[in-house]
């Protein structure tokens, strides 16, 4: 399965094509079934203004996510300046909904105060989660920003595609 490590190695620009490629066969017998992610159009690129924070659900309607247009290039970002990113908004500690604080440039969980950096692939800044925030893999196709995959297990699931 594509890991976010591969994703990042490929760079933050050439996202298109990565997820479209057929997922690799699980390398080890212990890996559970590889999910196949749907393609979801989130919004036209031109409608995503500076400071935009757009809620959506991905890969299914029970999985809240948020698209952010940051002010500087971000790891895994798309768009003209690689500043558009998206994350699952379920905290990877215990599943409370994280909120984006633009003035802080971070996502903060109100339950036990884990904080995540949207410019650094959802890295845990400080807090009690044992995974980073799952990053929604994006691409821009024909002027549309689309979700094509998820790097990291979403809270509450044993596999992202249930």
């Amino acid at each position, binding site marked *: *399965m594509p*890991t*976010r*490590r591969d*994703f*990042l*190695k490929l760079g933050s620009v050439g996202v298109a094509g990565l997820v479209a490629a057929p997922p690799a066969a699980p390398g*080890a*017998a*212990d*890996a*559970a*079934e*590889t*999910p196949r992610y749907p393609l979801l159009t989130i919004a036209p690129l031109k409608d995503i203004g500076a400071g935009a924070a757009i809620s959506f659900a991905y890969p299914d309607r*029970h*999985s809240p996510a948020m698209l952010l247009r940051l002010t500087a290039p971000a*790891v895994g970002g798309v768009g003209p300046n690689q500043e558009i990113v998206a994350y699952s908004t*379920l905290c*990877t*500690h*215990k*599943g*409370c*909904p994280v909120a984006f*604080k633009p003035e*802080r*440039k*971070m996502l*903060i969980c109100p*339950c036990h*105060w884990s*904080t995540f*950096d949207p*410019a*650094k*692939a959802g*890295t*845990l*800044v*400080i*807090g*009690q*989660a*044992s*995974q*980073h925030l*799952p990053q929604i893999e994006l691409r821009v196709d024909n002027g549309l920003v689309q979700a094509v995959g*998820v*790097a*990291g*297990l*979403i*809270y*509450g*699931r*044993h*596999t*992202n595609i*249930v």
Partner: protein
Amino acid sequence: MPVSRASSVDSVPLPPPGAQRFDTVCQFCIVGCGYKVFKWPVGRDGSPEAQGNALGVDYTRPLPPLGEWISTAMHSVVTDKDARRYNVVIVPDKGCVVNEGLASVRGGGLAQTLFAPDRATKARLSQPLVAQGRGHAPIGWDAAVDLGARVIKAVVDRWGPDAVGMKFFDHGGGGGGFEANWAVGRFFFSGVGTRTASIHNRPAYNSEVHAAGDAGVAALTNAYVDAELADTIVLVGSNAYETQTNYFLVHMVPNLNGSTLARKRETFAGEAVEPARIIIVDPRRTMTVATAEAAATPERVLHLQIEPGADIALLNAIGRVILERRWYDVGFIGDRTEGQTFEAYQRSTLAVDRPLADVVGEAARIAGVSPAQIHQAAEWIAAPKGDQSRRRTLFHYEKGLIWGLKNYENVAALVDLALLTGNIGKPGTGCSRMGGHQEGYVRPVYPGGRPALNVDEAIRRGEVKAFWVGGCNPVLTTLRAEAMETALKERGAVVQSALDRTAGRPVGERVARIVDALKLGGMFVLAQDIYMTATAHYAHLVLPAAQWGEVNLTSINGERRLRLYQRFMDPPGEAIPDWEIMARFGRRLRALYLEDNNPQMANRFLDFTWKSDEDVFIHARYQFKGDGSDPIEGYAGVTYDLLRRLGTNGIQTPTRIVNRVPVPTVRVHEDGRFFTPSGRARFIPAPQPWPGYAAKVVAQRTQFPFWVNNGRTNHIWQTLYHHQHVPFYAEHNPMPHLEMHPADAARLGIASGDLVELSNDVGRVRAMASITDAVKRGHTFMLFGQPRGATGDLVSDHVDPATTIPYYKGVWAAIRRIGPQPEIQRTVSFLPQNVAR
């Protein structure tokens, strides 16, 4: 370097209903959270329906918040000695009263620390090694033990037992346990008989809380439930959110936000109750301060952001206000303390012969806080509640105080405040250290006196001929660490050439040449550990130990909760438990002394015949009577069987035997008795206003502009011995971070992520800058034991002469920018780590 992808996997296998189950406790911090382990063969996974998996949880739909979720960090695949691969899932136990199902960032990754041949933890030591040329070669246990035991015997016979030096863990949890500690103590104290002993990163073998001991107050007095019941919580030098996480989150936060009010009403019928207030004494605005404010509203949080070394002045002034306002506990002092010590305390410590305003004003100046804050602290600690009932205050202290200016008086000043206000031994009160690692200390009495002798200095002077390091890494963490490294390198090299010259020769000849080398100033080094540490690199014998999960072990947490940490997998290769390593050496020494017709020495190594971890546990138990006279770790009457039945909740020590059954002690001193001959507590003088800096510290302070506070952080456990092999943690701190105030950083042209160098009269070290207002101007904070830059290289050899405890926090240095680190700046987050809203 990509950003970490421990979490890049997007699924986890579920344990099948038939998976093996084990109870354990987190291997990391003092809190000791309960965890459940599931293990099953790869390829036999459970299914998402509730009846299809061992957790009995319905995973067919996404879980609601606070569910029993298995994060990808909670799973890994291990290979046992049967060469079969097993899935292991380690999840926090919701049935454990300590953590109620919560993991912290460290505990959530327990599964990632397990040995696996296909992950970075394969770096584990798996064979005994002997130094050979520039590296190490396998030697096999029998030959390793034979060579090591012969060298130890030769050293003892020629130079006496004190020429054998040791620096060993005394931890509970992952770093030790009662079994390992007992075996180590039997070997070095009952067997070898050395006084040249020291505890992990410290230079000597000593209590860190001698002053509490002298006062008759236990190091761990309260139960965690007391944090749910207290009116006021006082944290001195403890960053609880980050380093005692689930004690703070599960027991303090609910009190701060009012969710324990019903419990308080029920426990204290008729007494005024409200949500708790909290006083945090810390030179930094930590995440603990930020989260306390988020939980309690800022008006109920008092952060005293003190200057280094000012604890005594601050605490004494608070005591003086309490005395002056007559908020002290007359009944408690009269009934429970030695009266003459209270008289002396008022003069020596509370300065009753000076006007109150002078005392408070002076303390405020020294501490860098306002007189009003000192009065407010006194009020929150001791002013009667609305209904005139006595306020219940829970005092906690840790390294900020213990490793502060003057270990003995620092701790005394706080314990005195607890005695003055009668806050020990009652629900909602207590005076305890917070703790760092867990506790599992049980050993024969240390043969040295007090203050204990300084092993680091004995090594530098060449008095130590054989030096055995177990489960610690002084090359990174002791004071003047570079001098330690130089001693290991230079004294070790002499022995090394003797070893190289005699490679392949009979052991008798090798030992003879080694002894010649020792006569020339050489030092034979043994390292017993789970990884090839910076210290082990210099060892002539490297002894691979089994770790947490590969042995059964027992330990207590910060409320003295004793549990069995069950073995659930095999150690790598030939690694064996620490107690077994000591036993092998003990048996060999006995045989060598018998061959030598020295029954007297042979008999010192009599009891190394244990067959199992439980044998060691039961052997160590003999000293406990269960009659109320035992020390706080006393576990009279406890067996592995009992602990297996009690699971992750265990039993709180010291146990007392009632009708042949061990019963727990929820709070120490609840019977009104203290650990002194009179049974009454003693006030210990802590001279007012404060002792000031020692000459060596003054010299360093004058020469170097920045105070380098240092310690542990949320993400990183100790020296990263595990975490450097787990990307999620290692990538958070690819090197130590150095927190700097924005104004200081601007002046030096330093940006977050820049490489900086700290230097002083002791040494130099590098770090990555992290610009934050968490520190005051002129203050900095650095992660303490990172392999790529350890503050030990900057810590001077100044110790509290009364206790031989170093002033680890007392470091001053110059800082200069070296340059940018683009990869680190691209991938590591430098957002502030003290923001909760």
